[in-house]
C-alpha cells in the first residue's frame, strides 16, 4: 500500500448526496481479475453521455477543477462492498476524499488502499465547497499526523478523527494482512481453545 502523510492539492467538488458505488464504478466494469485500470471507468455513466460522447457538464471533464482531493456530499460510497470503487478513485489519482459522512464498507476499503477518507462537519463541507467554487485554484493541505485539513486561502482548519492503528498503517504503507499474519500463533491458540 502507498504511504500517505502530508498532501497539498487543489480539489474536485462533487456536491452530490448518496453517491453510491454503482456510480463510482458501474457493475459492468467489475469483470477484471486484476486491480489495475479501474480509473478509466471512474464515474463512467456520469462522465459520458454515450460510449464516446463526453458529458462536458460533469466535473471530471471540467478543466476548471483538478487535484488529488475529491470533495463530496454526505453518504459517499454507499451501496456495494466492491473495493473496485476505492481502486478506481485511487487509480484516477485521488488520494483524499472529503465528505461529511462515508458509508462504512467504502471507508474501510479506502483505508486499506491508501485513499484517505476525511469526515468533516456539514458546516465545514459546505464552506469548503463554496470556497472551491469561488476560487477553483484554492488548495487544501492535509496533515495526517496532526489530523487536520486546512483551507489555504482562508486559513480555516478542521480536525478529523482516524483510528490510531489505521493512521499508523497509512503513514507507513502497512497492510492489515501483514499484521494478521504476524498474529498466526494467537489465532491458532484461539481456535484450539474453542474446540
Amino acid at each position, binding site marked *: 500500500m502507498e504511504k500517505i502523510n502530508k498532501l497539498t492539492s487543489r480539489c474536485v467538488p462533487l456536491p*452530490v448526496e448518496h453517491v453510491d458505488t454503482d456510480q463510482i464504478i458501474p*457493475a459492468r466494469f467489475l469483470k477484471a481479475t*486484476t486491480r489495475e485500470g479501474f480509473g478509466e471507468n471512474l464515474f463512467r455513466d456520469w462522465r459520458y453521455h454515450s460510449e464516446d460522447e463526453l458529458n462536458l457538464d460533469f466535473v471530471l471533464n471540467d478543466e476548471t477543477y483538478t487535484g488529488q482531493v475529491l470533495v463530496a456530499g*454526505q453518504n459517499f460510497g454507499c*451501496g456495494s462492498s466492491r473495493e473496485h470503487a476505492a481502486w478506481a478513485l485511487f487509480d484516477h489519482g485521488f488520494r483524499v476524499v472529503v465528505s461529511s459522512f462515508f458509508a462504512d464498507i467504502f471507508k474501510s476499503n479506502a483505508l486499506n488502499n491508501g485513499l484517505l477518507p476525511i469526515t468533516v462537519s456539514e458546516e465545514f463541507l459546505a464552506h469548503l465547497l463554496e470556497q472551491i467554487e469561488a476560487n477553483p485554484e484554492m488548495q487544501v493541505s492535509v496533515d495526517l499526523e496532526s489530523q487536520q485539513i486546512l483551507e489555504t486561502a482562508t486559513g480555516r482548519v478542521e480536525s478529523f478523527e482516524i*483510528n490510531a492503528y489505521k493512521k499508523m498503517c497509512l503513514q507507513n504503507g502497512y497492510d492489515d494482512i501483514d499484521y494478521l499474519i504476524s498474529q498466526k500463533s*494467537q489465532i491458532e491458540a484461539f481456535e484450539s481453545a474453542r474446540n
Partner: protein
Amino acid sequence: MAKTLFDKIWDRHVVGRPADGPDILYIDTHLIHEVTSPQAFDGLRVRNLPVARPLQTVATADHNVPTLNQHLPIEEPLSRKQVDTLIRNCEEFGLELYGLGHPNQGIVHVIGPELGITLPGKTMVCGDSHTSTHGAFGAIAFGIGTSEVEQVLATQCVLKERPKTMRITVEGELGQGVTAKDVILYIISQISASGGTGYFVEYAGSAIRSLTMEGRMTVCNMSIEMGARGGMIAPDETTFEYVKGRDFAPKGEAFEQAVADWKTLVTEPDAVFDKEYTFDAADIAPMITYGTNPGMGVKIDQAVPTAGEMGTDSERDTLGKALGYMGLVEGQSMMGHPIDYVFIGSCTNSRIEDLRAVAEFVKGRQKAANVEAWIVPGSMQVRAQAQEEGLDAVLAEAGFQLREPGCSACLAMNEDKVPAGKYCVSTSNRNFEGRQGPGSRTFLASPIMAAAAALTGEITDVRQLM
C-alpha cells in the same frame, strides 16, 4: 453489563486487538464468489500463502452467470474469464466450489441458509454487501472488501472496529398484502439510506417474530441499504425448525446441544443499544420506491414527495436529480405509472416462498402484453423445488419466464439488463442509477407488488387484486 445479542456473538469471536486498533475478529464461515475474489487469490500467490481454513470457505458462481442455457459455456468473454478464474483458484487452493451445473449452485446468500451452512451464533463474511442476509439466523454477518477477503483467506480473521448497536422494533400485525419486503422498505424510507451507518442492527418486536425465516432474510438482506453494517434477529423456534435437517446443520444430539446454546443468543432485558427505533406494523403498507436510492420510497397510495417537503437544500437537490433520472415529477401519484419490465429475483426475494407467493397470485391470470416478466430463482434447489411443486407451469401459463439461478438483473453483470429509459418493477435491493443496466429505471417493491404490476402493466396496489 447486560449484553445484546450482537455483543454476545462478537465477544465470542474476538481473538485480540492491536494497540488502539480494531478487533481481530475470528470468522466461522467465509463465502466467496467470482467478482470480489480474484485479486485476493492473487495476493495469496504473491505472498506464497495457502488458504488458512479451506473447510470454512464456501465458493459459488452467481453474479456473472447467464440465466438461460447454463449448460452451455458462458458467451460473454469477460464473464466467462471471471468464472473460470474462480474455478482455477478453487482447484489450486483446495476449496469446495458450487459452480455452474452443481446442484448446490446459486446466489451466495441463498445457498448458505438452504444448505444449513448459515447457523445461529456464527460470524460470516463475504465480499458482498448483502452478506447481512445471514443475520436472520442470529449470526453476525457482513460484507467486506477484497483486501479483507484476502485477510480472511490467509488468516480466517478480519480486523474490524466494533460497530455501535441499534435496535429496530416493529410491533403489531402486518396488514393484508404487506410483506417482509414492505417492512424493510418502510423502515429505510423512515430512517433514510444513511440512517444505519456505523451501526449493527437487531430487529425485534412481534411483527418481526411473526415473519418466516425467508421473510426475516429479506429484512436483514436490506440492512445495508440504510447504511448498517448488518442486521440480525434473535434465533427462536422458527429458526431451529428451519435449520433442522439441512445438509450441513448439526444432526441428532449435536443439534440438540447446539439449540441449547442458540437459545442463549438473545438480548438481555437490561441491555442498552446506542440507538433505538420503534415502528407500528399497522402503519406499514405495500411500498414502492420512486427515486434512486432505497430510502426514497413511499406507501403505494402516497404521492412522490415535493421539494417543499425536504428539509435542506442538498435534500432538494437529491430529490430533483433523482426525479430527473427517473422521469417522474414531484407530487405525482405512483399508482398507474406504466412499466416495461418486472424482475422477481435477487438475494432479497428469490426464495421458494417468493415464487410460491407469486405463483399463487398470478394463477389463472395473464401478464400485460407489453411487460417482460422475468423470474430468476436464487438457487438450483429453489428452481428444482418450484418445478416439483408445479409452480413453473402456473408461472408459464401467466406469461412469466422462470429462468435459471443467479444474481441476474439485480446488478446486470450478466446478459439480463433493463434497456435505457425503460421502467422495471424489481424485487431486488437497489434502485441506483443504471443498476439494472445503463439508463434503466428501477422501482423496488415486494414480489406480489411486482406481480401485480406485471398483470396490469402499471404500478398497482396489490391489495386491489387480492
